[in-house]
């Protein structure tokens, strides 16, 4: 990609600010990493000593592991639902200019545009007060899927916009019915967009705390809930730091994949919340 030759002054100032901001972004994260080795159970500053004790505890923590699996399960289920609904919505709105188009777009954006506390409270109230249901893993999944739809929708819509509309027509023209066309043409062409959208949706669900707090029963502990419960216990807080540090390190993989797959960095990330 040809780069713009920005004037030197602007270039330098932009670079300097970028470096400063990057430092500010990473200092707290490094601090988390450092504290995971801090002998002080309440991360006193400066650290009185260093130990790998917490990492070994974290490694053996069944609660953390269970919470991790719960989070993965919830995120996978929510992502699966979001993939289906987001793709359907994007396909429905494609090439269509019906009166409700804006309404539908707004509706898809709304769950992520409203604060999590609103979405969480609305679902909790809906499930418990109105429907009289017990909160469970499924209530978390439903709530998460709701705000994950937008990431899939955005990615698929961007892909559609880039592809243009003739491929499916070409397929139908060559004798393939709608389902064959979807299987052989639409889906393969959407694959990377779906993967990117799915990964974002997974990440979104995986780290969600607010909506989860409202829609989780007390037995269903996702990783953020586990962190929330344990961060405040002096004996467990350093373990939490280990888990958080490990999460940051491992997060490189999905982010890298998402970016790779989508091919277009901007598209991969829009809606990256």
């Amino acid at each position, binding site marked *: 990609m040809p780069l713009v030759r920005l004037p030197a002054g602007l270039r330098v100032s932009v670079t300097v600010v970028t470096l400063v901001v990057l430092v500010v972004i990473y200092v707290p994260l490094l601090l988390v990493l450092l504290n995971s080795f801090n002998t002080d159970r309440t991360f006193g500053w400066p650290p009185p000593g260093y130990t790998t004790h917490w990492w070994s505890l974290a490694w053996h923590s069944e609660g953390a592991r269970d919470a991790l699996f719960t989070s993965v399960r919830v995120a996978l289920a929510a992502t699966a639902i979001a993939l289906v609904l987001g793709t359907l919505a994007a396909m429905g709105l494609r090439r269509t200019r019906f009166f409700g188009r804006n309404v539908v777009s707004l509706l898809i954006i709304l769950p992520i545009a409203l604060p999590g506390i609103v979405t969480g409270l609305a679902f909790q109230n809906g499930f418990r007060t109105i429907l009289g249901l017990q909160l469970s893993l499924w209530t978390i999944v439903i709530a998460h899927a709701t705000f994950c739809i937008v990431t899939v929708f955005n990615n698929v819509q961007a892909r559609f916009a880039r592809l*243009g509309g*003739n*491929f499916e*027509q*070409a*397929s*139908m*023209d*060559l*004798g*393939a*019915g709608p389902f*064959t066309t979807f299987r*052989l*043409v639409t889906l*393969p*062409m959407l*694959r990377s967009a779906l993967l990117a959208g799915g990964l974002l949706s997974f990440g979104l669900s995986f780290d969600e705390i607010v909506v989860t707090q409202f829609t989780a029963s007390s037995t269903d502990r996702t990783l953020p809930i586990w962190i929330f419960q344990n961060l405040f216990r002096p004996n467990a807080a350093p373990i939490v730091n280990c888990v958080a540090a490990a999460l940051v390190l491992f997060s490189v993989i999905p982010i890298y994949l998402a970016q790779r797959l989508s091919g277009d960095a901007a598209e991969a990330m829009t809606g990256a919340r």
Partner: protein
Amino acid sequence: MVGAGSPAISVRGLSKHYDQVRAVHGLDLDIEDGEFFSMLGPSGSGKTTVLRLIAGFEPPTAGTIRLGDEDVTDRAPYDRDVNTVFQDYAIFPHMSVLQNVEYGLRVKRVAKPERRRRAEEALATVRLEGYAARRPHQLSGGQRQRVALARALVNRPKVLLLDEPLGALDLKLRREMQVELKEIQREVGITFVFVTHDQEEALTMSDRIAVFNDGRIQQLATPVELYEQPASAFVAGFVGTSNLLDGQVAKELVGEDGTFVIRPEKLVMHAEDGAPAADGNTAVAPGVVREVVYLGASTHSVVELDAGATLTVAHQNTDRSIDAALERRQQRVVLSWRRDHLVALGRAPDPETPSPEEES
């Protein structure tokens, strides 16, 4: 040209309205078997809509479409024995050239060896042997165009629809492909329905041409008829350069009321003193050269007649130097033409009334 039995495509009373816009209005059309048929018109004239209606991408507002003996009006695209070459080719980016070409056979569950054989045959037809394993993004524009063609031809459809397939190619390639397309059509014997806005393209390739404007056919004729005897000022203007004589000018120069057209190459330009005299066969008119445009093979001069009209005169740059022509700018000249080269258009076309009679 007219074959025996029912036409390949028969359209009756076809209309397509989008809200207030009438893209196609009350169209009747027969396209014969094995014909190379072109639909020519400016953008928005409805020609592409007719193509999409025939392909089945959109349902008509009214009217019927028959393919051979079958009424296909309500059938889905995949239920019609027609294939389309898209303007942007719509080659599946995630498949190789071979997979693209095989696609139609694959969804029809043709056995693999058979499908491979036919695909290779089709690639040979479009002179793309050896490209089977390529990916679409590794192909040039012309090659993609051929893949699209092969992908459609391999299904041996009754009718092949081509939606401005040469539009994206550069001029030289376009000329080559025009000839090639025509050859391929002769070779496979399939009815081609070709949509274009390029009059030269249409004239080069077609057996018959339908000129579209405002959702209607203005004239349906062979290329020669279309050029030599345009039915309306619109057709005359769209196909070739039109030199119109109407109103007072017509009265003065032709001697009768009406609108007349004469092609630029039928006009002869003389120096003021060397002009022939008008007689029963020849008409003359003096004027001033306002502009001279050098076009390589020929030169166009724009002459403002004293009578009021402005006519374009074309002359081949054969043996003599073109300097003489260029020096005539702003000079007085006399134009002459054979009276029988003048085509009477009748009244100026009114969009609300049907265009002059289509061929029956």
